[in-house]
């Protein structure tokens, strides 16, 4: 293994061990399972098939998954910085980028477990219990299928990965646990509501509705919703136009994920210099 990969792998192992030894994350997964199962039971879509189940879960998922991702990520980079261990780690031959990559990968794997397992279990229950028969793998429009739920799950994890990365960025920028929570909540609200509000404002200001498939893809939630409509729900009927530009939506989720990683790395790499520069400026004004 090369030096960089070895550094990433070593940090990844430590971070994953930390996650595994944190009982709260197990509780989080169980809680999510109960909520998702409850939503399906209340909505009744799960008894009918995968597409109705996805319709029931779509909007709650846009809140639940970012929430879980923020819980998983808001202290990811803060804890070592807060305890002073980051200063120790930085005396070792591991670059900031490797450290951030290792932590983010481990937290993303945790997301796959905490979010992916409950959703997969619910999907399994739908497969076993829904009527009419949902055991057909869709090959053409109009047929409900487990593959549609797998697609939905993939989009859910992409959305979650973007929020884990953004939450990690928050944790790198925060100076304390309290500020990390405040920034995390702010990021959550802005992410969940901000895109839709901006879109509504744009339409109210005379923006063209034909631009929606392009502009909706710009935010993580918009991209996720568009992809689910385009590639899961729309399979059940013949839509007149596209809900979202698929390539743009997938790219958007990937870019948000990378953006979080870059902000995290930059905050850790240059935070001390920025801090010293602020002090110098303060000194220039006479303290």
């Amino acid at each position, binding site marked *: 293994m090369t030096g960089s990969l070895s550094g990433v792998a070593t940090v990844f192992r*430590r971070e994953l061990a930390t996650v595994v030894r944190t009982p709260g994350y197990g509780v989080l997964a169980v809680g999510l399972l109960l909520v998702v199962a409850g939503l399906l039971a209340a909505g009744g879509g799960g008894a009918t098939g995968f597409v109705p189940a996805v319709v029931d879960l779509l909007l709650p998922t846009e809140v639940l998954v970012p929430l879980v991702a923020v819980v998983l990520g808001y202290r990811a980079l803060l804890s070592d910085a807060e305890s002073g261990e*980051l*200063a120790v780690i930085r*005396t070792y*031959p591991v670059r900031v980028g490797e450290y951030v990559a290792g932590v983010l990968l481990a937290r993303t794997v945790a997301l796959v477990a905490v979010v992916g397992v409950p959703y997969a279990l619910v999907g399994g229950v739908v497969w076993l219990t829904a009527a009419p028969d949902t055991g057909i793998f869709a090959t053409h429009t109009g047929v409900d299928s487990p593959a549609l739920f797998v697609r939905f799950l993939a989009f859910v994890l992409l959305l979650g990965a973007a929020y884990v990365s953004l939450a990690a960025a928050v944790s790198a920028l925060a100076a304390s646990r309290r500020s990390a929570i405040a920034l995390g909540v702010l990021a959550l609200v802005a992410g969940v509501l901000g895109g839709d509000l901006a879109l509504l404002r744009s339409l109210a200001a005379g923006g063209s509705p034909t631009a929606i498939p392009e502009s909706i893809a710009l935010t993580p939630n918009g991209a996720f919703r568009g992809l689910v409509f385009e590639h899961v729900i729309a399979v059940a009927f013949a839509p007149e136009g596209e809900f979202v530009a698929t390539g743009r939506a997938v790219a958007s989720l990937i870019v948000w994920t990378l953006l979080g990683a870059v902000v995290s790395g930059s905050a850790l790499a240059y935070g001390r210099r920025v*801090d010293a520069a*602020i*002090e110098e400026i303060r*000194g220039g004004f006479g*303290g």
Partner: protein
Amino acid sequence: MSDEPVAALSGVSRTYGGVSVLESVSLSVDPGVTAVVGPNGSGKSTLLRVLVGATEPTGGEVTLPGATGPKPIGYLPQRVPFREGFTARETLAFYARLVGDDPDAALERVGLGDAGDRRVEALSGGMRRLLGIAQSVLGDPSLVALDEPASGLDPGMRERAFRAAAERADADTAVVVCSHALDLVDEHADRVVLLHRGEVAVAGPLDRLLDEHDAADARELYRVVVGETSALARDEGDGSDGSGSDDDGDETEPAVHVTGVSDR
């Protein structure tokens, strides 16, 4: 042995919230044991953090001409920061993997061979410090910086901690130790840097400083130069649990740490 110092600070200053903590500190760190002493709040921990790169100075520069290798610096902060939930061996294994070292050998070196399976939070304060020292010397760094390695320990343990640190010093390795334990400074230090109000009051070989100030030992030197004895009443070893949270050194720094200004 090279003529170059392992590390050098030139006109280094640092402020927190506009309050000066270090002021125009110029130092040369040579191989051997250098003890940094001074009253609480004199800037010892900040000096060490600047030296290892954990804190960016607001003025001056730090160079490491003689610190080489894949891991040129070893550092133990005043508060031993290891994650709870991990055993001593797992903790060292994480760091050892980054430099290709052997965690078990490192545990043995500081006498923690039998405590490898104990969780970090179950270790006594002294054992945590020894674990921290074991971590700091992994990868054979040329510069080892230890902040209060004997803080909060009983007499036997503080001697053991200090000795474990001092044993690392050789012709190519510099060990810099912040300490209030002036008896251990007498016993182990080759050179002393005495900080007072963020400035270097005196610095040089201990023997020379004792001669110049007509002092019998480091304690008397301290008294002559700083002109006070209050800080000495809180010698290392008087702390409670050895966790390093006993406000024994430059933990006064957070008092001038303002919201929004972080030193990480």
